[in-house]
């Protein structure tokens, strides 16, 4: 995956520019010159922005914050792939050594009806927060907890729950899905809790409420393309979607019977 070439490289960028949510966008072309191969993709954009500002042109707006792959703020579709060509990698952890000197790189926002563009490469992902608000928690009042070691949890279950809880809520799964489904995100949240004893009391209502919110936000359904799994920077397996389906079915049956 490392592209051989000089320490400093030149690239052609085709970048989506859009003034705001009400104005149509378009691609604009820029030269990214003398980019160190050890610079990250976002540092490359920083360098391009510095030169734009110096020429009194508006810099490219993009979301980013921690720049170490954990906050989930960065996004970008790079050459057609959310978070770029490398697996298990957020855009902020993608380095220019993976691109060859002279490459043309196309940079777009995450595209989905439920993720409206705010400006250039920045989209509004608050729909994911509203799904969380519908049930992505265990209801426990502060101070009402028993001793932490009172419930032993088998290590494999705790590890599995952690695999699911590692989701960074970036929304790449949505951007990669032909149906713009947020099922991988939803499945990760639901599975994290359903694998643990703490999640049991609200298990039935949680999956139903979160799924209802998912649909209400305009995300599509899963049709097993597995594009989500391929781009997920936190390597959440699509197997959790199967688990989600099972959870949902059981919740519906339980609700109907009761």
């Amino acid at each position, binding site marked *: 995956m*490392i592209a051989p070439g000089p320490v400093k490289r030149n690239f052609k960028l085709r970048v989506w520019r859009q*003034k*705001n949510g009400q104005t149509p966008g378009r691609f604009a072309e820029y030269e990214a010159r003398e980019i160190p191969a*050890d*610079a990250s993709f*976002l540092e490359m954009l*920083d360098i391009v922005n*510095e030169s734009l*500002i*110096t020429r*009194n042109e*508006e*810099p490219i*707006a993009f979301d980013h*914050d*921690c*720049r*170490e*792959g*954990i*906050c*989930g*703020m960065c996004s970008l579709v790079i050459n057609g792939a959310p978070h770029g060509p490398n697996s*298990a*990698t957020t855009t902020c*952890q993608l*380095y220019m*050594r993976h691109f060859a000197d002279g490459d043309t790189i196309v940079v777009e926002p995450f595209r989905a009806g439920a993720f409206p563009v705010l*400006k250039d490469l920045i989209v509004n*992902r*608050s729909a994911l*927060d509203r799904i*969380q*608000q*519908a049930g*992505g*928690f*265990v209801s*426990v009042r*502060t*101070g*009402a*907890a*028993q001793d*932490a*070691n009172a419930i*032993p*949890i*088998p*290590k494999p279950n*705790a590890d599995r729950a*952690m695999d699911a*809880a*590692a989701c960074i*809520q970036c929304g790449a799964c949505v951007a990669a899905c032909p149906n713009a489904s947020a099922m991988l995100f939803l499945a990760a949240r639901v599975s*994290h*809790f359903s694998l*643990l004893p*703490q*999640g049991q009391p609200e298990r039935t209502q949680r999956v139903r409420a979160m799924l209802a919110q998912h649909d209400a936000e305009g995300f599509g359904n899963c049709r097993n393309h597995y594009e989500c799994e391929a781009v997920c920077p936190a390597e959440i397996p699509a197997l959790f979607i199967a688990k989600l389906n099972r959870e949902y079915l059981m919740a519906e049956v339980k609700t109907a019977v009761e």
Partner: protein
Amino acid sequence: MSNGLDAHIPAGPIDKKWELHKFESKLINPANRRKYDIIIVGSGLAGASAAATLGELGYRVKCFCYQDSPRRAHSIAAQGGINAAKNYQNDGDSVHRLFYDTVKGGDFRSREANVYRLAEVSAAIIDQCVAQGVPFAREYGGLLANRSFGGAQVSRTFYARGQTGQQLLLGAYGALSKQIAEGTVEMFPRTEMLEVVVVDGHAKGIVVRDMVTGQVSSHAGDCVILATGGYGNVFYLSTNAKGCNVTANWRAHKKGAFFANPCYTQIHPTCIPVSGDYQSKLTLMSESLRNDGRVWAPKKPGDKRPPGQIPEEERDYYLERKYPSYGNLAPRDISSRAAKQVCDEGRGIGDTGLGVYLDFADAISRLSEDAIRERYGNLFDMYHKITNENAYKVPMRIFPAVHYTMGGLWVDYNLMSNLPGLHVLGEANFSDHGANRLGASALMQGLADGYFVLPNTIGGYLATQTGKKGNVNSPEFKKAEEDVRDRTSRLLGIRGKKTVDYFHRELGILLWEKCGMARNDAGLRDALKRIPQLRQEFWENVNVLGANEELNQSLEKAGRVADFLEFAELLCYDALNRRESCGGHFREEFQTPDGEAKRNDEEFAYVAAWEHVGENSPPQLHKEPLEFETVHLATRSYK
């Protein structure tokens, strides 16, 4: 208690203070709580846990964050773990030991009563987080696992792989999300606080800017809580997220809140070294790695052989050599300084000579590569992505980097600043870590403040404030809005030749050189001369394009850098004033013959709380003497 600074430390023996204080504090009855509006800025561990808990108690809460979701606050990036005095390992831990380790770790520059309380509530934090479903690491028997962190000889650190901060924040975010759904908390993402509003001497609201539309608006309440993190980005390069800033704290400081101990900055020993001037941030490699990694440098200066070709007897495992009882788990300030000394002697590794090795070869041969992967896999992956090196095969290259700031707004035992109504939580306050924070104690403090301390102390203030709620139509709010708009227009009107990042980078280089890992009188005086020059140049020659009424990232950055350019001066004043070395503050003039920090308890056993007295006047110093009744002041030794 000089200069009217009263920390309101309750009377009684140290292990009874908190209990008595909770009993004696005023309460707000459940039916009345909904009459109080509480404004919280920041949604990291401290802010989110406070917002969730206060909402759950029935207060009306508004919570603001600059990120697009409260779950993205920088607490999420904390890797290694969270301390708690559970003694699940039966290795002699106790509340008293955690308290003692923290006071000693802070080089006897923290307030005893606060630290004791922190240790006291630490166990309840773990209970709370487990009940929320935080998937902490477990043993095969199903019980919680622990590991060790620097500055402790017990295993008291709970962790969730290398993503402990993420999992704890998700727990608090879950609790917050529930309250948002129930309507007790109103959340304002992509909203930046730009002014604190003071009415009749009390903080009664804030002015914010909607970062999508640019709209400036006021929010009034009965009190204001800042949980806005640290100011490490004043150095430009740090392990902080790019958006971390001092603006909320600085705006509050200029409205009367004292800034305490700004010179106490933590330089973390194990970060990936700087590789070039394009670099936008530094990445931490968790301290937990030092459980199994051994730190070394070549014995010979200028030895440029690859690490594998340097034989065992030509390596200097300097932490093990200098600090045999703590070894590689010496505290952060001490480990960082030792790395600097090695590099100053010309023994640093890598192209720049600014680095040392963190070597896992012994642990891999003792335990297997899989065992190491199980413990630190995500950290090794992260290291590989950034450096393109496989740390299972070659040692990691590490170097110290700015990480955490112990200084912050001054608060009393109730977490209220000297500006009544303004409460400050987590990294944004100064109270618990003294001159150096121990690893895995930041998460503990953020959650202690938000879940357990503030919800028990806020009633004491609110009970005195009936009928004194702020009003957004009052002249104080209108004036604060005007100030924000004026400042924004000024920034947009300069249209100079240099970018915001240029000034930020220049400031960072200056501070790192003059007020970084080592400081001295002449360097600090030079910095105090140059910072105002840089600030003046900024206001004459910065180029901020675009308008206010849109999403404008340059404008956001410009506002933050403008505040850093003012705050940096205060940081240097504080460092110049403190003529001793302690914790993260190392003054070259004050060291022992073997290069350790030399404290001066006679003259400096106090909190330096600085008052802003005007744009062109030096800040005024107030002292809160530190009295040690339980712990005996001693020379800090990890040998």
